[in-house]
């Protein structure tokens, strides 16, 4: 059987796992696909190559396809979200200098207490400089949401590519940062800062990376698109089995993919983090998930949340932006692709889900206790 080759862009991060595993463990082959995985040095380059058609689909920061569709990020191209690739996975940290000041201000150093930690951070710097990987990212939105929920404070975000985050912290260019693993742990390992809060403490079910593709390409390749969704869904299911994670870390660690030490990847995949140098790894609930509880479902309510925030930052009409963004979430296409894969009980309990429901995933809350 001849397979169809798809060019898939990704940025070498732990949460690219579903795409890498889909190809390397044969889930793509089972669907008649070969994924030509193309590693990208930056989100801007990935975005441009997707816009130009060099890439068919890509691992993307969840706000990026919406920003592109709204014309906020370079070339205006309608990029649609086929599914969510990963839920959560970010971590917030501060420089050693800021951590000391926070302790002096009475912070108890607990990891996972958004209110106390946020107040301590704002007590030492009322307008913190926060490094994030990209302007249109869940990282930037989580930080804004967190500080906004506390005394309506705000941060000055600065874009720092994740591999350079530890350097930026050390040089004092940023007071704090929000980044995906393994780059938060690298800051701790380099002893230049510590982790103060998992992203999941701000929103416990945030769509982190999504699978994006151009609308025109999706329309022209309906079968390949469904096959791709199924292959990635199966990879996520495989990644949800703890027994598979050693092999997953080994595959991801290879030079062609993340080119990072296996242990770092393994900890993140197992939702463990070491917040301080020398501390034992602690388990962070829901730190990073690829499967289950409809984690991969592209909920239009996510699009609404993201678009409303983007519209506010850029002075666009929030209602119109949200409407446009929700159209880019291909929930029906996703459901038709995975229909035969989900277990009966999953379909029974949630198969009749409204596409625009606002409380999709059980315990899904943001820290201000407004159920999302």
């Amino acid at each position, binding site marked *: 059987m001849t397979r169809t080759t798809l060019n898939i862009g990704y940025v070498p991060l732990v949460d690219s796992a579903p795409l890498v595993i889909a190809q390397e463990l044969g889930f793509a082959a089972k669907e008649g696909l070969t994924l030509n995985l193309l590693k990208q*040095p930056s989100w801007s380059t990935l975005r441009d190559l997707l816009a130009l058609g060099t890439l068919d689909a890509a691992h993307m920061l969840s706000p990026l396809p919406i920003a592109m569709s709204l014309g906020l990020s370079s070339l205006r191209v309608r990029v649609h979200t086929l599914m969510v690739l990963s839920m959560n996975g970010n971590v917030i940290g501060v420089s050693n200098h800021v951590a000391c000041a926070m302790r002096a201000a009475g912070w108890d150093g607990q990891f996972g207490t958004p209110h106390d930690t946020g107040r301590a951070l704002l007590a030492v710097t009322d307008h913190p400089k926060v490094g994030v990987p990209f302007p249109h990212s869940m990282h930037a939105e989580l930080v804004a949401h967190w500080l906004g929920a506390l005394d309506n404070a705000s941060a000055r975000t600065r874009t720092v590519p994740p591999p350079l985050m530890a350097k930026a912290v050390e040089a004092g260019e940023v007071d704090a940062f929000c980044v995906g693993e393994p780059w938060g742990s690298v800051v701790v390992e380099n002893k230049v800062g510590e982790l103060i809060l998992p992203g999941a403490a701000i929103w416990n079910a945030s769509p982190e990376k999504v699978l994006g593709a151009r609308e025109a390409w999706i329309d022209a390749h309906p079968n390949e698109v469904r096959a791709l969704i199924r292959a990635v869904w199966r990879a996520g299911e495989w990644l949800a089995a703890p027994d598979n994670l050693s092999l997953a870390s080994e595959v991801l660690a290879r030079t062609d993919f993340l080119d990072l030490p296996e242990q770092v990847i393994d900890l993140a995949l197992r939702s463990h983090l070491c917040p301080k140098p020398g501390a034992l790894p602690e388990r962070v609930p829901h730190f990073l998930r690829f499967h289950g509880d409809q984690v991969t479902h592209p909920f239009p309510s996510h699009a609404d949340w993201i678009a409303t925030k983007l519209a506010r930052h850029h002075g666009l009409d929030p209602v119109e932006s949200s409407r446009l963004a929700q159209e880019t979430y291909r929930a029906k296409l996703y459901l038709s692709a995975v229909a035969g894969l989900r277990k009966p009980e999953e379909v029974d309990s949630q198969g009749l889900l409204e596409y625009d429901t606002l409380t999709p995933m059980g315990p899904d809350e943001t820290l201000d206790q407004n159920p999302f």
Partner: protein
Amino acid sequence: MADTPSILVIEENSLRAAEIRDGLSLGGWSSVTILENLECLSQELSKTDPDIILIDLATPNRDALENLSNASGAAHRPVAMFVDQTDAELTRLAMQAGLSAYVVDGLEQSRILPVLETAIERFRFTSQLRSERDAAKRALEERKTIDRAKGLLMRAKGVSEEEAYQRIRKTAMNPGRKVIDVAQALVTAADMLA
């Protein structure tokens, strides 16, 4: 001064940066500033006040430039070149050559294109040089490993150099591996047993 647009080149490799500067000055653009890292980009932008920014696509630092193009109300706002969708083909060529261009404060298209064409040519040329140099370096490293593996086999099995090489090659052929992979495995194993 108004006739020659000022160009800022962000390139970590100073040899490559010099090569690009030379190419641009041959083309008649003398106002070229090189920046080797983006740490002080905002200061550099207000100091040199460039019309065009050229940046190597291979650097993750490109995302930091996006931050500035996103900042609403910033005085010097670099915008990715092809935002107005004028020339997708040129953009594609630039990206293939490993280059992205940002334009500050709406310089006319007619003045950007020749700069970009020259830069594309230089980028392509230096990329080629770089990949040739990398390939040569890798080949040399591989040869060293293969020589060590041959030496190990010659000592352990008392065979000639030619025979040792044939054995490595044969082992590699069966499961479809590369000679270098087998040699590397042998060297690693020998190091562990030493």
